[in-house]
């Protein structure tokens, strides 16, 4: 009898523990996206022959890495309550300048990536000056700089790619380490750095504080303008990193690099639970968001979904994810 009572109490504790874990998981802003990613992955591995092949997995990871890098920067800007529409064009312009630096200015191939990241930071900082310094609307400022960056890319290249970039440089985009494509490793490393910064440093706490309540952050003595400036600068830097890695991958500085990355970057961040109003979000969520988009894009091709329907499906998934997020917040 006593044994039965003890067993029942243990079961109750177990159930409560399980429920608590579930509740905590459900509270986590990226819970929905993780579930969606697992379900989608399982469905595709059952429905297609090639989805789980090592080649396809590396393709998916690499595709997620480029948009994901841009999305990391976008997440920082969204966290401080801004938005950067120029990231795709910044990636393109940076990739072109980096390619020119490599092929025409004679900069060493190993220095091209840091050089391009610095250039990208400069582009982002330009947005930061207007948004943080002059308090202009980030949507309008970055819409304008998007056009400027994209236009400059065409002015410089006249539409022609800059190539070849040479094996000493293409290794960064085409190479692998332990079977994992280097861009994927760089993406992972960047994500880990940002997770650490946001969760373990004062800078990270200040980023959330500025986006959560700008006025309160000013009153708390946080250097709000400096934080906003830095967020835009880093967004430009991550975009540039994605752009130059893509150029390395393709052995060409291509004027159209980054054209389609803006929507992907914003979508990945939002899917991962980052709020458009600032102050809420996570890097893990953004990484999962980028992965979900890449899996979705890959899956629609493998399932022979018509190009007409692919955009409808991606849009619908985003809508469902936002609705799930709303339900989660309400509960």
């Amino acid at each position: 009898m006593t044994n039965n009572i003890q067993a029942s109490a243990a079961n109750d504790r177990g159930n409560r523990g399980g429920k608590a874990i579930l509740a905590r998981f459900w509270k986590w802003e990226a819970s929905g996206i993780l579930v969606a990613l697992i379900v989608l992955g399982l469905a595709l591995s059952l429905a297609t022959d090639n989805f789980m092949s090592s080649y396809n997995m590396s393709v998916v990871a690499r595709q997620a890495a480029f948009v994901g890098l841009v999305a990391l920067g976008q997440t920082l800007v969204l966290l401080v309550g801004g938005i950067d529409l120029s990231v795709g064009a910044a990636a393109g312009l940076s990739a072109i300048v980096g390619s020119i630096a490599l092929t025409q200015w004679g900069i060493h191939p190993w220095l091209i990536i840091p050089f391009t990241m610095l250039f990208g930071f400069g582009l982002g900082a330009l947005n930061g000056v207007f948004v943080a310094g002059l308090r202009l609307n980030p949507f309008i400022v970055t819409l304008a700089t998007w056009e400027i960056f994209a236009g400059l890319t065409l002015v410089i290249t006249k539409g022609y790619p800059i190539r070849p970039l040479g094996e000493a440089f293409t290794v960064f985009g085409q190479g692998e380490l332990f079977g994992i494509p280097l861009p994927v490793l760089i993406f992972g490393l960047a994500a880990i750095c940002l997770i650490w910064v946001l969760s373990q440093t004062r800078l990270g706490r200040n980023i959330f504080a500025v986006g959560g309540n700008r006025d309160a952050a000013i009153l708390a003595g946080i250097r709000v303008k400096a934080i906003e400036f830095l967020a835009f600068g880093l967004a430009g830097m991550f975009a540039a990193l994605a752009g130059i890695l893509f150029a390395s991958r393709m052995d060409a500085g291509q004027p159209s690099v980054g054209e389609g990355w803006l929507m992907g970057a914003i979508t990945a961040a939002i899917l991962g639970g980052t709020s458009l109003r600032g102050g809420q979000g996570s890097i893990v969520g953004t990484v999962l968001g980028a992965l979900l988009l890449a899996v979705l894009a890959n899956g629609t091709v493998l399932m022979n979904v018509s190009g007409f329907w692919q955009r409808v499906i991606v849009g619908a998934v985003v809508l469902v994810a936002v609705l799930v997020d709303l339900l989660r917040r309400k509960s």
Partner: protein
Amino acid sequence: MTTHSGKGAMVAALTALCMALPANAQSQADLITPVEDELTFVFIPKVIHPWYDVVREGGQFAVDELAESGIKIEMIWDQPPTADVADQNRRIETNIGRQPDGLAVACLDQATNSQLLREAKEAGVNVYTFNSFCDEEFPFVGQRDSYGDGYDLGEYLAEHLGGKGEIGILAGSLTATDHVERIKGFKDALKEHPEMKIVFEQPDNDVLEEAVTLTENALQAHPDIAGFFGSNASNPIGAARAVKNAGKTGEVAIVGMDDLPEAVDFVCDGTITALKAQRQWDIGYWAVRYMVAMNQNHTYPMDHNTGSRLITQDDCGE
């Protein structure tokens, strides 16, 4: 005698060996690999566009024809919704992972597409390029002489306008080599006519609505404009809609590429002066045929020029 007979036997044996050699060597027919399983061919065009529907029709005709001889083919069209280089490259990468028996790509961007097509070849995929030339290392079926098309249309327009007048160019996509080459050819043709002046040149990115807007702007900015050149299949239609809406049919000449139904209607009502039409049905037909040939270890051409023909109002009665 013995020696003679030995020599004779040796000669006879050598003769027999020589005669037998061709029979024992591999017959050339043995070089051909029979196709027993269903083949999967993936076509990746530059963008979803009615022009490719005709390519697809030609491909489907070849598929049906081959089915009668026992060769089954699944033809998949993976079409980017917009002419986005990154999107097209993502599709190429994904389809390499599918390991199709043939991958046919219309290159949107020579440089980056070539890199991925090289990777496809390394992964053992039979690669064919169509419509838009990519690189000498990949077999190609389509109209290779885009420069010639542009040049011919330039000459035709110059002749039509009497060798003078202001001209506008709808430049299509700045990264598509066929568009770029056509414009180059067109400009070179106009160089022979010093009284013809290019006053407007803008990319429409192969989007019809953009071509309409650009033409409207050009008509406003240059009221004396005498003619337009469209570098792809969409923009002559865009130019024609704008010119017709402005009530300038017949006053402003338009030359451009391809024979989409609406473009041909505009030729027949006099809005479009001339079109250079590619034979895209043939492109689809031969792409399928050649990819089958690759799977059978047949030889195939590295460059099959399907050419193009001029369409004017004279052809409307046909």
